[in-house]
């Protein structure tokens, strides 16, 4: 499989997963996070090969906020431009639980075939 096919597959997979990962990150932290901070946490958790570009998380954050799963506020920063901080809402927590269940089911289901074929 050539590289561009692999990238396209990864991109299709990411479509829903980025939103799930962002909800999970914001659920685990007590404080509010802004885009750059979230991007850096992803980068740290993901040593080496980047699964997705950090620039792609911003539109997802915005759409999650538009859907009411996150709330956000702008805080002026003396070190640079104002920052938009995000926090998960109760609706977001419920959604995260649902999505996590779906993800676990999907993973088990897919693994059943992948493991079977390699065995």
């Amino acid at each position, binding site marked *: 499989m050539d590289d561009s096919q692999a990238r396209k597959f990864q991109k299709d997979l990411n*479509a829903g997963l980025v939103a799930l990962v962002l909800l999970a990150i914001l659920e685990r932290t007590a404080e509010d996070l*802004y*885009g*750059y901070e979230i*991007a850096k946490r992803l*980068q740290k958790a993901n040593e080496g090969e*980047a699964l997705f*570009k*950090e*620039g*792609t998380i*911003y*539109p*997802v954050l*915005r*759409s999650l906020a*538009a*859907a009411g799963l996150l709330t956000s506020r702008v805080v002026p920063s003396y*070190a*640079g*431009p*104002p*920052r*938009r901080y995000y926090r998960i809402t109760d609706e977001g927590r419920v959604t995260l639980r649902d999505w996590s269940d779906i993800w676990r089911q999907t993973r088990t289901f897919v693994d059943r075939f992948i493991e079977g074929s390699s065995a």
Partner: protein
Amino acid sequence: MSPNAPRSIDDYLQQLRAALAGQDPALIQDALYDAEEYLRAEVAAHPDKSEADVLELISSTYGAPEEVAAAYRDTEAKVKAALKTPAPRTLGEPSGLRRFFGVFMDVRAYTSLFYMLLTLATGIFYFVFVVTCIALSAGFAILIIGIPFFLAFIGIARVISLGEGRLLEATTGERMPRRPVHPGPPAGWLTRIGDMLKDVRTWTTLLYLLVMLPLGIIYFIVAATGLGIGVRCALSPLIVLGRDFAILPPGVSLGMIQFGHHAIASPHTLLGSLLSMAFGIVILAAVLHVARWTARAHARFAKALLVETR
């Protein structure tokens, strides 16, 4: 690394803008804001490296301008589809009559009418705000507080224009920015005030806020008059029946529009009042059409004056 990879933040933003060409200006403003926030934070996080060195690595972390643009386009299409109020479902090509009265089923028509009524209040507020602050800025100009006062005034005017945009998007569905215009790199007061004065957006925003007063008065009068006549006509059978069954006290006026002692078109019979009701319903439908059309046109007007398109 491609030969035309961005070497500076401005370069990057320009390429991102080019990659998003043709998209909604509000979407472009949001995307540029996000990118600038990230890039400036990234440069600030590496004080030991030059801007060009940091930008060299950007395409592998934040993503190249084309990749980022694609992400915004995809997400926008999905969000739009998810948030859009489904259009009233009609079987086949709706007839003219059905299209005319179908407006009663359109949520946007009611929110647009609400917006028209609201513009009187917002128009007065914007006008008073701008006129007061311009007068005070002129007065304070010779004092030391003149400059910070003017900066604060323009800053607040921008926040108001963002709020107005959100209100318009909520009532008419026209895509407006969800982020303010990025203030750019931190700079001294004099540079910032110079930039503000040079930015044509500053002046068109103030113009919009001023024009909202006359527009608000016109919108309010049209909406309130139409609603008043429509509702009054549509309810006339109730008044006639109320009189006939003596539920309403005698002496309740049946006059619909009165000039001195001359009442025009006041129905005294049930048949007359039913005709009047039909007339009222037609008026209400027309008012909703006018509201929908006005709000749509107004949103485009607001976008032309408030949203950046460089």
